[in-house]
């Protein structure tokens, strides 16, 4: 189990040449081998969604994917959302609408919402609620997350 193979992960447009065991999850590889600790791990069984990242345009739970499966694909994490000093509208909306408290689940919610809205900008409110129900937050009661994502969705459609 402990044989490591070399692979290259492309995270936020930057290549990371790493060597990992076949069993290494993408979440662990992003955090520990590539040092991008903004992606958090909440359950490691695909329920909470804290580890959500965008792979080739699709939000995925990085705890349910092996690092080796992500080779050659475009991975986006929370660290890559802002454009320099300018926050992504989703990040700004979470701040404006108090869509976070402890902030642990926030990167997962941001990547989930951005990933879905980029693919489906005209998603209905009901479908958006369905999507947001795939991640867990224990602090906000979701009220302000929903508000923030709806506000950002309006902004992204402009």
């Amino acid at each position, binding site marked *: 189990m402990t044989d490591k193979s070399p692979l290259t992960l492309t995270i936020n447009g930057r290549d990371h040449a790493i060597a990992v065991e076949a069993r290494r999850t993408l979440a662990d590889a992003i955090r520990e081998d590539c040092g991008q*600790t*903004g992606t958090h791990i909440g359950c490691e069984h695909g*329920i909470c969604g804290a580890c959500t990242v965008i792979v080739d345009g699709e939000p995925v739970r990085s705890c349910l994917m092996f690092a080796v499966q992500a080779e050659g694909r475009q991975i986006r994490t929370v660290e890559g959302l802002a454009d320099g000093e300018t926050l992504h509208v989703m990040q700004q909306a979470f701040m404006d609408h108090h869509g976070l408290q402890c902030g*642990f689940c926030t990167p997962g919610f941001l990547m989930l919402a951005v990933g879905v809205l980029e693919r489906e900008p005209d998603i209905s409110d009901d479908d958006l609620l369905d999507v947001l129900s795939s991640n867990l937050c224990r602090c906000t*009661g*979701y009220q302000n997350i929903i508000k923030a994502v709806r506000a950002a969705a309006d902004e992204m459609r402009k």
Partner: protein
Amino acid sequence: MNAPTKGSHGEALKWVGRAIRRLEDPALVTGQGHFTADLSAAHWVRFVRSPNAAGKIDSIKAPDGAMVITAADLKAVKKITPMLHKFNYKAVGQSILADGVVRFVGEAVAAVVAASEEEAEDIADLVELNISASAPVVDARDALADGAPQIHAEAPGNVILKGEVKTAGFDEVWASAAKIVRIDARSHRQNATPMEARAAHAAYDRASGRVTLTCTTQMPHLMRTAIADLLGIAESDLRVIAPDVGGGFGQKMSLCAEYVLLVWLARKLKSSVAWTEDRRENLIASFHARDQYVTLEGAFDKDAKLLALRADVVSNVGAYSCFPTTSGVEPLMAMAEMPGPYDVQQYQCLARGVLTNTCTMAAYRGVSRPIITFTLERLMDKAAKAFKIDPVDIRRRNLIDKFPYTSATGLIYDEATYKATLEMAAHAIDLAAFRARQKEACAKGRYLGIGLATFSERTGYGSPAFAARGMAITPGWETVHVSVDPSGYVEARIGSSPHGQGLRTTLAQIIADELGIPPDLIKIVHGDTDTAPYGWGTFASRSLVISGGATLIAARKVRAKLIKIAGHMLEAAESDIVLEDGAAKVAGTDRSVTVAAMAREIYTQTHRFKGELEPGLSESGTYDPPGTFSNACHIAIVQLDPETGFVKVERYLVAEDAGRIINPMIADGQVHGGIAQGIGNALLEEIVYDDAGGILTANLADYMPPTAHEMPPIELHHMETPSTQSITKAKGLGEGGTIGAPAAVLNAINDALTPFNVEIDTIPATPQRIRAAIREATAKQSA
């Protein structure tokens, strides 16, 4: 950040009361936060945990060459032995790793140390545990039965504490009652489930011999005190850091044996060592809560006025006692606060904490009050039914409306708005319109229900309140150091340890108003025992009241000194100086001096103050208030499907009074989050043990916190009754949402069940339980 506007009467700029954006957020939304598990270490730990609920450890066999720590290695480490000097409390000790005996599934038996997390996990799988299992006792009532297995020799009959109260004249008043109404309530076991599970990182510094423990905790200073005590080291040789903490909700205020072991290991290895708990460990072996049976009887006069309450509380405290609160935290809270917001002067209660072969119970947001409020509010609805009056009306007849009010248990309630928030909520929900809609729906086979909960939320209580419990460790006060550095920037170091509550923002707002400096130029420093003053951390809806009060005291001292400095520098009378826009100004003139210039002067030109002012600009405030009561009325409207037992919360409305609100956006967020946890408690969340003491809910698919789907839109209405018991006039509000929601939801479910002649007094009211109750009633009817 928006600039504040001048008040209409020309008063100074005010930041308090405004919904400014949080200073915490920029780092957290960009992935730049620092959480414990982000640190790397030379060594990683994996705990081997007991698969048995009860038994004797015969042997622990480690694979060749592996480093596996067991109790045999820890003889010099004291047991965690929390203490209460009251309520017939029996001190029971917990070894850092199980020593000869295991008492619950998930108890740490051995610790594997390896170079990586994966390697430690692989080795842990190979550790051979030989345990002679014995019959466990899982349920608290079973543990009280004659002949039940004894969990600790020190606590015969498994009773770890017993509180009793009976007011003088109780029997006479009880005998005079027109009606006695009774409820047998059951609250099943829950887990606070912060999204970040436990994690710790301990690093030894060879130069100083000190260990730095970074861990996800609500109480960094108390962790330092407790761990130094257990290891027999100087507190100054241990630094504890609570970095960004991913939610706590009470689970992270207790001392974890695992953290003690990490510090011990760092010292032994003279290196760094880390542990990150997985979700399964969190669900089975971090702290649990809420496992209680409460029987409550109310004696009413002929006009439905409550005369007396009699309660029996059986609280399952698990296998050990938690530090620092002890396992009295739930049963004693239940005993002290059972009468809630109602005017009732006669009270009898027996509250017992009962040891079982289950995970240790500790504080969880609301501590017992979600249970006792649900019990008491169900009792009021049952009484309303018995008297054939409206649920609003029975509350109207019984809520406290004269202040200060001294409760049957001696608590002093400061001014609140129990009746006013009830009326406000009832008006906002339009009860009459709902009843019409409910009737119409019922005719079509759709079952709607409405439920009320009125309650008090005791917050911001200082050391006398904790001392009354007889705790060997009596938390309460807070200290804050506010300083202006020579560059004019303000820093406040606080002993509280916020982890999502937005305290950096709200304290900065308080300081901003005193010093006339915008909040974004004020840094709040917390969570590091090397830089923060000793304090008790963040729990019990206390930080804004107590740390906020200490902040105000310290900021006022700094303000007074700034005015003196300005008086000297501007050669003006102190009474003519105003502080605003980052400067001291002489009122009615254009003469001013910036705070930065004054700060530079008092550090570097002290000779100019002719010995009248001390060098530097740093002041300290300590606050230890008696406590203040927030209050609210919650109303839930549910739709219930009798075929499946499924309950959907359609609408949720709150009328709340938490005194002066420092930041309305943050306050609302606290209420929203609390309600979500309360709805989870009411409908979904349950740690299920089987008879052998195994846990059937060890992942988040089986233990279900609510998602966005389960949450109704929440409508908040506010009143602000400034507290006279808090110098900022603010009351706490961290727990109210969680306290009110189970009661409101259960009352609504029972209202919806009225046509079926069924009542359900168990939380969570799962579809299975609702279906079982309907089936039973239908069977009875047809029999």
